[in-house]
């Protein structure tokens, strides 16, 4: 316990003045943005999920929740903690938005209440803080440099698209990032059972960390090449992963809803109807297969490399692997998993990552806000501080063609293209840094 306190309490430890100011500013910013902006679709899904298990005692009996159970469980805890605060209205059907419903372009008219949104978003803010702390921890552990670790914390906690993901988007990717980072740190510190449990939870909450399996296993095996404990430690991690998985999916096994709990993941690779749909499905499968192969090759790289700084190599290859994963798909909130690994590379390996990081941060945040004024309807409806009819007018203008078929929404959505270019630029920067260091994988720049 004393060591924990020393992290937080020492004069030159975690709670330095810049970090405290960053935490305060970051929380205020999140509270303001989380109150003002809410994309109705996903947030109302979480409201429905909570109502469904409150009614049925199951995550999957009533339609509405299609993810693996971990996020549903976290919603359970958030619901429990939120009840004393009297969050009684989850949302309402907004008649004013009905005229904007138009065929495939559906305005989301079941709008979650601001207090409900904040109830679960505050949980996400705390996760953001924990992620930023782990980034600080890794940088401090590796560089022993106050300045670098503080910069890493600030970049991580104030990363624009990390903020939009947990505020306007109301998405839980920060929990996946937290679990993944915990797994990495615990592996580096040789707590393999707990690391395995974290890995299982990370993969169960979002599939993407699952692709990191190869590089993580390769890390453990290569680290223990000399003492011969590699396989033993991998088995320890497998035990942790198996225990966590069993505990968390046991209810679905018992009630026979295991297939439903994986339906979102499986639906991504299902065959779609029609010629174009089939082509798209095949392309999706091919891309996932390519990412899988790339992940295996990165694992092979990890295993075969003979470097002293194996932790540094792991962090670099994790950044590369996560970037490769998001070559497809690259939804704004997914990149929350990339942010900590990218920040670590920028601060500890090469300043060359500055440009792609800056472009990624701005473009992804803009892409995340591409729903425009639709993000304001909950604020207008539930606070009365904006006229809901004015917001409806803004939405109408936002989705109306401006020049030819191009709408303001189309223009903002183009930020997604810039975001994608930034992802490619990150890989290019990695290649440049790698070549520069005479093809020895860059790990740390002291």
């Amino acid at each position, binding site marked *: *316990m004393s*060591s*924990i306190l*020393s*992290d937080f309490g*020492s004069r*030159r*430890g975690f709670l330095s003045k810049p970090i405290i100011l960053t935490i305060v500013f970051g929380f205020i910013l999140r509270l303001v943005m989380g109150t003002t902006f809410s994309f109705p679709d996903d947030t109302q899904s979480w*409201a429905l999920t909570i*109502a469904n*298990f*409150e*009614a*049925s*005692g199951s*995550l999957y*009996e*009533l*339609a509405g929740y*299609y993810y693996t159970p971990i996020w*549903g*469980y*976290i*919603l*359970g*805890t958030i*619901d*429990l903690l939120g*009840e004393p605060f*009297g*969050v*009684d209205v*989850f*949302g*309402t*059907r907004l008649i004013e938005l*009905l005229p904007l*419903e*138009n065929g495939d372009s559906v305005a989301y008219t*079941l709008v979650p209440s601001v207090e409900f949104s904040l109830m679960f978003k505050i949980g996400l803010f705390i996760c953001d803080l*924990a992620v930023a*702390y*782990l980034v600080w*921890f890794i940088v*401090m*552990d590796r560089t022993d440099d106050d300045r670098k670790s503080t910069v890493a914390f600030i970049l991580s906690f104030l990363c624009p698209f990390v903020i939009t993901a947990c505020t306007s988007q109301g998405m839980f990717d920060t929990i996946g990032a937290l*679990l993944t980072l*915990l797994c990495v740190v*615990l592996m580096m510190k040789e707590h393999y059972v*707990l690391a395995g449990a*974290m890995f299982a*939870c990370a993969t169960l909450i979002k599939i993407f960390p699952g692709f990191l399996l190869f590089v993580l296993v390769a890390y453990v095996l290569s680290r223990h090449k000399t003492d011969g404990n590699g396989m033993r430690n991998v088995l320890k991690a497998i035990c942790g992963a198996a225990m*966590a998985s069993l*505990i*968390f999916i046991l*209810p679905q096994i018992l009630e026979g809803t295991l297939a*439903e709990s994986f*339906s*979102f993941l499986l639906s*991504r690779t299902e065959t779609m109807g029609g010629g174009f749909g089939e082509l798209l499905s095949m392309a999706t499968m091919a891309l996932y297969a390519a990412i899988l192969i790339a992940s295996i090759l990165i694992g092979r790289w990890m295993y075969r490399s003979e470097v002293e700084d194996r932790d540094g190599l792991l962090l670099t290859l994790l950044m590369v692997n996560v970037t490769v994963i998001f070559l497809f798909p690259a939804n704004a909130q997914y990149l929350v998993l990339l942010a900590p690994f990218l920040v670590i590379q920028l601060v500890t390996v090469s300043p060359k990552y500055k440009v792609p990081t800056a472009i990624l941060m701005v473009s992804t945040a803009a892409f995340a806000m591409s729903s425009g004024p639709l993000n304001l309807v909950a604020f207008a409806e539930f606070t009365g501080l904006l006229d809901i009819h004015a917001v409806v007018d803004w939405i109408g203008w936002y989705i109306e063609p401006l020049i030819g078929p191009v709408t303001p929404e189309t223009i903002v959505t183009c930020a997604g293209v810039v975001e994608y270019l930034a992802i490619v630029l990150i890989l290019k920067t990695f290649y440049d840094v790698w070549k520069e260091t005479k093809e020895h994988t860059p790990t740390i720049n002291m």
Partner: protein
Amino acid sequence: MNERPSDKTVIVIAIAILAVILVGEVVVYTSDYTDYSAEVTRDGNVIEYSVSADGSKSYSVVISDSGGYGKVQRLLLYYDESYPSDYEDVNADVGAPALDQSYYLKQIKALLGFRYVTDIEYVNAEELGEEMQTMVDERKSSGTGLICISGVLPDTIYTGSEGDILFRWLDDGGSIYWAGNLIGCEYATSDGSIVEVEDYQRLFFGSDCLNTDPEVERAYNEYSGNGYREALSLSNNNVKYGVNPSAISGRAVLSLGYERDGFSSITSVQYGSGAIFVFGGDYSDYQRYDMAQVIAAGIGPWSELKECITGTVTRGTTGGTVIVEGSDLTAYAYLGGYYPVYGRYFEL
């Protein structure tokens, strides 16, 4: 040199998040509608209500005069894979199972369960015909409802003739809840064919009143004239296949929900002592939520909204009294608004 950060902090964070997940798992699988309760009683014109909740929930107590319409106590779900069906495929959310007839019925059964409508059974075409015949013979159709979303009625109950057992059952007090197509426009036979019916609208409603224009689909206004849309938190605003209540004469009609070009998203029309309920639009989650709510609330063609009391209950019991006049008063208490977690019907 700084002191290197201790990995104990990381271990504590890891254990804390495991605890959060585990606590949530317990919360999810130990919660259900029995965490809530409601009671509504009547003493003369004084209605007394109370609502209880473990957590914090909005509640509504909807008091109606049913006009003598008896709420369905027993529900039959028609489903027969050996008979053809005729409804439009709809897009499901990413990850959601295909919203077909089987899944829809399974879901409606679950939605009714936490509203204390539990006497529900599946019937195939043959069983349905036999059930209806028995109920008509014994004059016991009242209080029984049929949910039919196949888009086409089986020939065991309907062949496009006024003398069909379906109409005798409705006349005797049965209620049919219909969605997914134009009611009665065709019937299905056991050999797998579908037969179109002429003048089907007059058979069911006595006049042409259905929305046959597929372009007239989304309604942008709530149905005025009664407060049921808001009182019951009704969501479906699709009027495809819906009924225009003003085109019906000589029968009790109640429209609730949303309206466009005179067509309503939900309409209940009297047929003898029974009722025909038409829910507009192709299959949707909203349509299903509304169907469950209307069935559980015991709303019928003669229903009139008398009072809707709303409020919040937080970890305990709240309640009050209200003066309401009427002869056939009923109450439907539900918690959660547009995200209902509990519903219960009371005859007062």
